[in-house]
Structures are given as C-alpha cells and as structure tokens.
C-alpha cells in the first residue's frame, strides 16, 4: 500500500479563501505536489495566521505577479510540467490573464483544469458576484436552520459550510479525473458551482417540495421520527444535552434513567406512534427534568441504558477527547497540536501527510529555479522588475 497515492502529480493552485485551499490541502496529504501561486502584495496571502494556516499546509509557495506578461509566461511554463490546475478567479480575470482552460490546454493538452465559482461558468447568472455567506441564503439552507434574525446568529452562516462542502466536491472531481488520466492519458475540464454544491445536500427539502409537501420538522433542531428529540439545557454554564429516542428499547432506557419522572406511566408511553404524536409534551417533560441536572452524569446514565445522547461539545473538549487522540484526529507536531489532514483513518493511524504551511514565497527558488530552470541572475532580475514578488 502506498498512502501517498498522488506522488508524481503536480498541481498549480491559484485558489484563495477556503474551498480551493482545503481541496489542495487534501490532495497534498495524499502525496500530490501543490504549487501555490501567491502575491506578497495581496492581503489574502500576506496574513497567514488563524484559519489560513489550518488549510494551507502540504503546499509549496511561490510569489508571482500574474498581471504581467512575464508572469503569465512563467505560469504557462509551469503548467507544461503539471497535471492539475485549480482556480477560483472571476471569468474576466481568467481570460484577461491568458489562464483559461482553452489557453492552457494548447500548452498542455491533457491538463486537468478545475474551476470553482459561485454560480458555475455557464448560465444567465454566471458572472454574478457571490460570496459564500450569501450562497447560504441563495441555496436555501439559511431558511432551514434556526430562526431568522438581523444579527445572523445561529442561522448556519458560521462556521463556513458552503466552502468546505465545495472543497469536498472539488476533491472528488479531481480524484476521479486523475484516475481517468492515469487510465486513458486524457485530461478534463471541471466547472463546479458552489450553489449546486450546497443545494445537492438538501434532498429532503427539495423532494418534499417537488411532491408539493412541507418537511415535517427542521432537522437542525430535532430528529424526525424520534420522541423525545432535541437539545436540552442542563445545570451549569451553557451546558446542553442532545437526546433522540427512536425505538422501544431506547424509550425503556430513557424511562429507567428518568424513573422519578414517571414517563412510562403516561398515556403516550404505550406505542412509538403515541409518543411521536405527543412529542412536544414529552420534550417539555424532558426539558424540565434536565434543567437542574448535571449533563455529564445524565449522559453517562443514558449511554449505559443504550439511549442516543451527547452533550453539545465545543472544540476545546474535542481536542482533549481521549477517543479523538487515540484515533489520531489530533496530534502534536513540533510542539503544536494539529488537526488530521484527512478525515479517515488508515492502517498505522495514517491520517495523511503533513507539512507546515509555507512562508510566503518560501519555494520561489525551487519553482522558478529547479522547475522552470531560470538562473539565479534571471530570477533576481524578475524580482527587481516586480514579476517575482
């Protein structure tokens, strides 16, 4: 087995913000060589802490002014020896700088060119300016999470969803294209729409609407077909316990844990159907019972009785969770705790290759010297002229 299955694949990465960088981070974790094209004059690249450093490891960084003819020529040279191009430019920029698929395929016919944009590269709305936060609304998901409010709180806008989801779709498409290339020698063009990437994950709402029906309950706050089901306040500072009871066994387990609440003596206790019909009342009883209780104690008791339940945990607790640590979801690298670079576990606790986020322009000599064959004098002259910057 070779976990670095993409060794030998070189990716030219023009992407910025979240979706593209998360994609190339994953591909880098599988062994691809990712050349990130940056510019030291642009703030989206020069500020490298926080989220940037989490999603830009496993890459080599070079700095290039792609608005100059020399910079564009260097890109074309780089593409000649590469296999994949990842971009999220506006349509106008792509053509203006000679970086469109049509141009690059003349240089490298079997290039895999992957374009991610808000609306996709075709259609009447292809040129609309679209931010990920607005796509949350346009895709419909904002209307399915929480209650609308002017502060946009707990409506699914944060943490980012559309971007990480787009990254997963983009990675899927690229892996399929690489397999196709390895088997046939043929490249491909992928035109990915972030709007479509988000909508494709909302089948329950779409299918109900297509049948002229409404979704019974929002899944963001409760589990359909379960009673009780919800997120309930417990004793202590901001402590919440999620509970979802679907089967008779789980119901009996809940009744044993909540013995003093006499749930099984109530008229709704007899059948699952009766409990679903009385869901609101059962949820209210559970909420009242939990309000002064310790979430951790009740959670343990529910687990012992086979009842699905979890405290609503935060990142600090998850990073410290022995289960997550044993599964190598987090590990210490050079004295710093890092999150796994791939969300699955292979033999020997392998979770993807990891190299730290590069300093901006860190690999200029490798990219422009080793890969493009430019002499040190020529590179110095290009830096002086502002092409390498």
């Amino acid at each position, binding site marked *: 087995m070779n976990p670095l299955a993409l060794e030998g694949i070189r990716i030219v990465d023009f992407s910025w913000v979240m979706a593209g960088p998360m994609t190339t981070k994953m591909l880098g974790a599988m062994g691809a060589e990712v050349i990130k094209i940056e510019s030291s004059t642009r703030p989206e690249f020069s500020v490298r802490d926080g989220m940037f450093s989490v999603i830009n490891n496993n890459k080599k960084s070079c700095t290039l002014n792609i608005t100059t003819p020399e910079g564009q020529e260097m890109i074309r040279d780089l593409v000649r020896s590469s296999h994949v191009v990842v971009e999220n430019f506006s349509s106008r920029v792509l053509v203006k700088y000679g970086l469109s698929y049509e141009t690059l395929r003349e240089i490298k016919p079997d290039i895999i060119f992957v374009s991610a944009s808000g609306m996709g590269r075709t259609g009447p709305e292809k040129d609309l300016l679209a931010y990920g936060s607005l796509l949350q*609304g346009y895709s419909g*998901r*904002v209307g399915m999470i929480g209650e609308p409010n002017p502060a946009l709180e707990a409506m699914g806008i944060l943490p980012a969803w559309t971007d990480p989801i787009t990254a997963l779709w983009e990675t899927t498409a690229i892996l399929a294209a690489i397999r196709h290339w390895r088997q046939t020698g043929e490249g491909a063009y992928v035109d990915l729409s972030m709007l479509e990437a988000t909508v494709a994950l909302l089948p329950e709402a779409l299918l109900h609407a297509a049948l002229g029906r409404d979704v019974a309950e929002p899944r963001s706050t409760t589990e359909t077909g379960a009673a009780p089901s919800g997120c309930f306040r417990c004793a202590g500072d901001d402590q919440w316990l999620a509970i979802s009871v679907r089967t008779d066994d789980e119901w009996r387990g809940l009744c044993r844990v909540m013995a003093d609440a006499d749930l099984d003596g109530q008229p709704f206790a007899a059948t699952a159907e009766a409990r679903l019909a009385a869901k609101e009342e059962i949820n209210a009883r559970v909420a009242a019972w939990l309000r002064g209780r310790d979430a951790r104690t009740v959670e343990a008791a529910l687990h012992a009785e086979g009842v699905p339940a979890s405290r609503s945990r935060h990142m600090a607790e998850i990073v410290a969770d022995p289960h997550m640590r044993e599964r190598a979801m987090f590990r210490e690298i050079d004295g710093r705790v890092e999150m796994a670079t791939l969300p699955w576990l292979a033999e020997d606790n392998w979770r993807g290759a990891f190299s730290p986020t590069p300093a901006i322009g860190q690999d200029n000599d490798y990219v422009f010297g080793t890969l493009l064959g430019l002499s040190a004098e020529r590179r110095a002259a290009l830096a002086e002229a502002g092409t390498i910057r």
Partner: protein
Amino acid sequence: MNRFTRPPFRGPLSGLKVIELGSDISLAFGARLLADLGAEVIKVEAPAGDPLRREAPLTPGGESALFAYLNRGKALVSIDGGTADGWQLLGDLAGQSDLVLSTDDAVRGAEPDWAQRPATLVVSAQGLSGPSTGRPTSSFIQQHASGFAFHQASPVTDPEATPPVGCADWEGDMAGGLVVAIAALWALEAAAGARPGPLVDLSHEDLLVYMLVEPFADWQAGMDVTDRRRDPAKGLTIAGGLVWYLPCADGAVMVSPREDHQWARWCEVMGSPDWTRDAELCGDRVVRTNNAAKLQELMARWSVTQRNRDVVEAAKQARVACFPVSTPRDLIENVQLRSRRFFDDIRFTDGTVLPMPSLPFRFVSQRGEELARGGETPAPGRPDDGRDLLATLLAARDGSAERSAVGGL
C-alpha cells in the same frame, strides 16, 4: 453503432466495480457519486430490504424519493450476509470488485476475512477503534457530539436563549457521503490492486469535526472557544465582510455591499433615503461596520415594503451582491440551475417524475465529451431486480448451496 463509433462517455470512473453493503445515508450517497462518475455499483440489501426504503418522502405509490436520490444508477441485489453461505457469497462478490464500501454492521464490526477482498472502507458512527466506540448515537446526536452544533450557534447575543443547532436537512450525512467517495478513490489508488486490500476506517463524528476549520483555528490561536456569548465590541462582521439579512414583503434577501462603490450603488437601489447621506452613520466601510445593526434596522424598514425578487433584480442591475433566501420550491424553478441542467428527472414505477440534483459540476473530457446532466432516468427498483446479475455470478461457481442465501432466487 458500428466498430468505428466510440461508445458514449460514461464518466471518468468507467470500468470501476464497487460493492456497497449495509444501510447508511453517507455510504449510499458516496457510492451513488461513484456511480454518477461512471463506476458500476452493486448495492447489496438484506432480504428485508434497506430500511431507508421507508424514509420520507414517499411517492403516491409508496416509493421513497430519498432512497431513489441515494441509490439511482446502482444494480440492486439481495443477499443475507448473516448466513454462512451469504457471507461467502459476499466474499466472492468482493473478490470480483475493485472496492468494498460497507457499514460496520454489515461486516460484523471488523475487518472482513475475505482473502480476495479489495480496498475496503467501513463507515461507522465513532470509528472501528477508540475508547468511545459503540456509544448510542444518531445523525442528530453526532452533530452535537462533534461540536458542529455548538459552534454553529456561536457567537450569539444570548446563549441561554439560543440552543446549539445542527445542519439543515440531511447535510451532515450527505457531507459524509462526499468523504466516503474521496476516501474510496484514495484507497483505490493507495491499494494498487493488493488483495486483501487496505482497510479504511471512516467515522461520522471525525468528518464533522474535520469541517470545523474556524473553531479549530481559534482554539489553536489560544482563543476561548467555550464561550458562545458575542463580544459587542466586535460588531456584526460575518466572514470577512458585511452581510445583511433583510426581510421583504415576501421572503427575505441577503445583501453584501462591502466596498464604498458598491454601497453607493446599493443606496440608489433603496431610493437614496435621507439617512444614506449621514456620513457618521454610513460614511465608509469602517463606519458601516460599526453601525451595522442600526443600518440593518433602517434598510429593513425599506425592504419589508418590497418584493424580494424586485430587490434582487435591482441589485443585480446595480452590480451589488444580493440574493434571495430561497425556498425549496424556488430552487426547483431557479433559472440558473435549470439552465445548467442541474436537475435530473427520476421516474418512479407509479409514474411520478421528480427532479433531483445531479453532480454539482460539469465534467468534460479532453475529447470534449461531457458527462450527462439533466436527463430522465428510472428510480431504483426492488431489491431483487439484480437477480439476473446474481444468477450470472452464481453460474460461474457451484452455487447450489448459496442459493438459500439469495433473496428471490
């Protein structure tokens, strides 16, 4: 077609053979994506059928539309993996495949002992190893256990009144399906044909944690990720720029006129009310950020008198980023999605035809062949529709003993 005509492009994964075992939304969706990309996927159901066949919504004829969304394009067969013969038959099928995708239940919670099995991906709630494996859970519970719900309701003005909140729809499970597809394609390449192939352990909880890039970055930077209360000094800036949610006479819009030139044009869209000339209220981006809540109130007074489609159209003409908050019905009729042939039509045996999202990208081969989108295809049939396929497979062996393990044969 004659011998000079190339066969139609079936997708980049054409020729790949995949076996799917067990009932799980992420697993089924991931396998369907591979089928969409050209793989031949055989879904094995237990004799009672996949419980997801009963999941809402149902067509008038009683077929599950969700099941169809998850399983169209697959061959369906019925085998009882609980019997010795059935287990052996699954091993034979695995030996003829390039990938096995399974739930932990379907492979009895461990690495299957089939000598000729290919790369095998096992999906479970908390993974196959670790001290918390086996905790009772559900799709809803996983979103709370993974931290997704807590951080989706953070920061908020009043944590006491704002419980943690999960994803919309089946999103958490669907995202899991994407990771199933990615992990499967990686495992295929990593295995390089080895038999038995590597085992990949995929946990629902892990992949939800993986999505929490921002909370993890905050934790790494030493920030307090345990406190959900909003810091009023930080204003209402969302995701790097000002975004406002404006209720309309019908529905709502979201708008983000971040830069000064965009703001100037947005003011014209609103009819340039007097307050837009108050420099202390909205003079530049910093001022607008500080006054975001007050501006929301003033803009909402105007927007509630407008139809959302009129606001969006006027903003579009003014080149201001503005979109409606869509309803599911809006999406089915959306001109951009329709123009890109995003919806396939799925025909059920009772005659119902439902639009369903296809892959969210156009895939065009170097030869210019485009993966089909927007066509009509049949919904998946009954569990024993693959009986001919199974009969063919059984014919190649002395299959008399196995027939008892096969539904419908």
